[in-house]
């Protein structure tokens, strides 16, 4: 798990992860990037702040939880902090497993937790002004899936 204070290369991260996991049949990954904003009010930059110490520990906790929930070979998480331009990667998550379902569900789970259970805050700067990004109602619905047992299908 890495907190990246400067721009990172998610493609290279995937290549490294894959080389370290050639014995895994399935590698699922996710890359989040800074969105361009509205055409008539484009995003100029995104500032991501975090709580050092607690962020790392929370991420390690739910990565360990994922390793218990699914038969995974490995997990990789890179989360950017600091000021970013549109198009820059914010987050990279990958999971390696024997079969695809475990890999998919683990990446999905980790992203839901990164979105609403790790102490990061995003502030968007647009021509029209600066605003803090609030979690969307979908983010709360997403994370609730892992609590109510809906996804506890046998894999």
């Amino acid at each position: 798990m890495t907190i990246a204070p400067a721009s990172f290369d998610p493609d290279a991260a995937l290549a490294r992860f894959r080389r370290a996991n050639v014995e895994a049949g399935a590698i699922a990954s996710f890359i989040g990037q800074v969105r361009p904003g509205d055409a008539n009010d484009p995003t100029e930059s995104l500032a991501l702040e975090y709580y050092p110490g607690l962020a790392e520990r929370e991420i390690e906790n739910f990565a360990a939880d994922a390793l218990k929930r699914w038969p995974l070979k490995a997990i990789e998480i890179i989360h950017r902090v600091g000021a970013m331009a549109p198009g820059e990667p914010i987050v990279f998550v990958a999971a390696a497993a024997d079969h695809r379902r475990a890999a998919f569900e683990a990446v999905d789970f980790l992203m839901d937790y990164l979105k609403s259970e790790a102490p990061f805050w995003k502030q968007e700067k647009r021509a029209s002004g600066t605003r803090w990004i609030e979690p969307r109602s979908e983010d709360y619905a997403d994370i609730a899936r892992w609590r109510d047992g809906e996804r506890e299908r046998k894999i």
Partner: protein
Amino acid sequence: MNETRLLFFGPLREAAGGGERLVQLPDEVATPAGVIDWISAGDEVLAARLAQPDIRIAVDQKIVDRDASFDGAEEIAFLPPFSGG
């Protein structure tokens, strides 16, 4: 008497007028709820903001209930809703 560092993140930093305060908490202030009352005395905007139930509080880097008492704290952080990922 020990100093406690109060941390305000994200939009709370603006409400608190800064991200960090060094304070000496009175002995009787020994829960997050007590700290909130103490620091927002006379500041209705901050009081209202910290009263919101979606604000999480970490004492020495551990998220705790507002009524969980602590015996000395080096760092108390006020955490608005997270927006990572």
